[in-house]
């Protein structure tokens, strides 16, 4: 009994500490005056409106959404054929590419960022808007690669063999049997890459930071040159968006399994 109370208390405390910064920021975001005060004085949604009406904030928001969508799509386009190839064929050498796809995410991000900076400078593309899309796609390719490896691993090969025995070729098997089974993993891989790209700072900053402003860069610059409650509003919008994306994944997919736990009746 005592143990149980202590456990709930500890869990409650952890939940509170995890939520506290966001709660304070949410409070600040509805402040009436242009100052960071908590508890908020008055109530106003003006700062939320400013995210969409102020050209600077709206531009950064659109840039971030476009970059995140394109780079997550490109990451999936890189990860899918690789994961499929590894599952379909016996080719141990191809594992090297899988390791390559995992590396950028494991190393401290400043290293990948610096590699990209020297590369884009050497080929004369430093600062071009599309370079951040390619950089983010390669940086986050790990996420769809991990979810897709899990997804292909979960495909029951006897279905595939049945289809092959009935005369289906590789393409047909992929389209009619494999694809429907791995689709949730494609979606979650895309979502992970999308959300992380949306929030990524250092790679974006080193690659296009002076020519293209994504939201994290805009927030950091705003932090250095004077606070405004608009930052708080943007933060709340971001956190909500992320929670919605992962909530949807949990709703449509098996989240514990996507994160590596075995299903209850395995």
């Amino acid at each position, binding site marked *: 009994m005592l143990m149980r109370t202590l456990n709930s208390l500890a869990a409650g405390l952890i939940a509170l500490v995890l939520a506290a910064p966001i709660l304070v920021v949410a409070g600040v975001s509805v402040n009436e005056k242009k100052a960071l005060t908590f508890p908020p004085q008055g109530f106003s949604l003006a700062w939320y409106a400013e995210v969409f009406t102020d050209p600077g904030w709206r531009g950064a928001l659109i840039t971030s959404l476009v970059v995140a969508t394109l780079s997550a799509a490109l990451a999936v386009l890189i990860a899918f*054929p690789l994961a499929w190839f590894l599952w379909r064929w016996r080719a141990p050498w191809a594992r090297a*590419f899988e390791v390559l796809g995992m590396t950028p995410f494991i190393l401290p991000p400043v*290293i990948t960022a610096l*590699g990209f900076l020297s590369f884009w400078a050497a080929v004369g593309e430093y600062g071009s808007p599309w370079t951040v899309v390619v950089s983010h796609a390669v940086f986050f390719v790990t996420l769809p690669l991990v979810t897709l490896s899990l997804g292909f691993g979960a495909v029951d090969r006897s279905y595939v063999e049945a289809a092959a025995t009935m005369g289906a070729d590789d393409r047909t098997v992929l389209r009619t049997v494999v694809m429907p089974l791995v689709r949730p993993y494609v979606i979650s891989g895309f979502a992970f890459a999308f959300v992380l790209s949306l929030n990524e700072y250092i790679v974006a900053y080193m690659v296009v930071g002076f020519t293209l402003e994504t939201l994290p860069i805009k927030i950091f610059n705003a932090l250095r040159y004077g606070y405004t409650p608009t930052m708080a509003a943007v933060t709340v919008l971001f956190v909500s968006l992320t929670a919605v994306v992962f909530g949807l994944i949990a709703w449509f997919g098996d989240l*514990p399994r996507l994160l590596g736990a075995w299903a209850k009746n395995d």
Partner: protein
Amino acid sequence: MIRRAPRGLAEHAPILFPALMLVVFFVIPFSLMIAVSVFRRVPGGFYEPDLVFANYERFLTTFFGGVMSFSLGLAALVAALSVGIAFPFTYRLVKLPRGAQIRWLVFLLSILSLSEVIIGFAWSTLLSRTAGITNLFVALGLMAEPQSLSPSFGALLAGLVYQAFPYTVLVLYPALARLDPYLEEAARTLGSSPLRAFFTVVVPGLRNTIVATTIMVFVFALGSYLLPQLLGRPQHWTLSVLITDQAIYQSNMPFAAAMAVFLVLVSLALVGLALLAGRREETA
């Protein structure tokens, strides 16, 4: 469907695009960075091909040695604190009903995907004089007047552990979710208290997982870049901050690259150790 080695161009075709992308946009940039680390810096922000080790020698000065040891010490402290809190937490988490588990996971994933910028902003607000937690203490009568708690080492540590905590839980989650519940039940049947069963059965059984996770979190914390700038003082800047400073503001790419190569070697050695520790348990 027979799984055999692929033959001919047609069967190899699907891997061509991913292989090309990873080689062109990861292997080449990475190699280029290593090459730049031995290039000679030309005043004015450029560099020319050469083979000099001055950039590495400069690294051996007391100033950079100090930054390096601070970065490593900070990462170690963050890793120890995160795993120390996250392990018992995850142990309880995997025992919760499925619905509650999923709610926690969504919450943790949301925190995990917060940008370092947002975490930095949120914590500096939480610890500020005007909008911070000390206002609450004043209202409760615990404090005479609100004060600023950031920037400071404590603020930096809080921010880093906050950032690392969800990551730590998610790394520990699969191992704990797959832990055989019968082992612990057996210990309980034989008369162990829950706490005793936890420390004598669960913790030793997962010793390698704990070591591997600690190393992974260590590498994760080593990469922190914005939080030291937002929550710490200049003496709390880490190697990542210094690398960026050299690359962007001092325009000294060769020196930045040399520091990055050093960071790669440290990280790879640690990741290797983590994989080794994780693997032994699987075979055991």
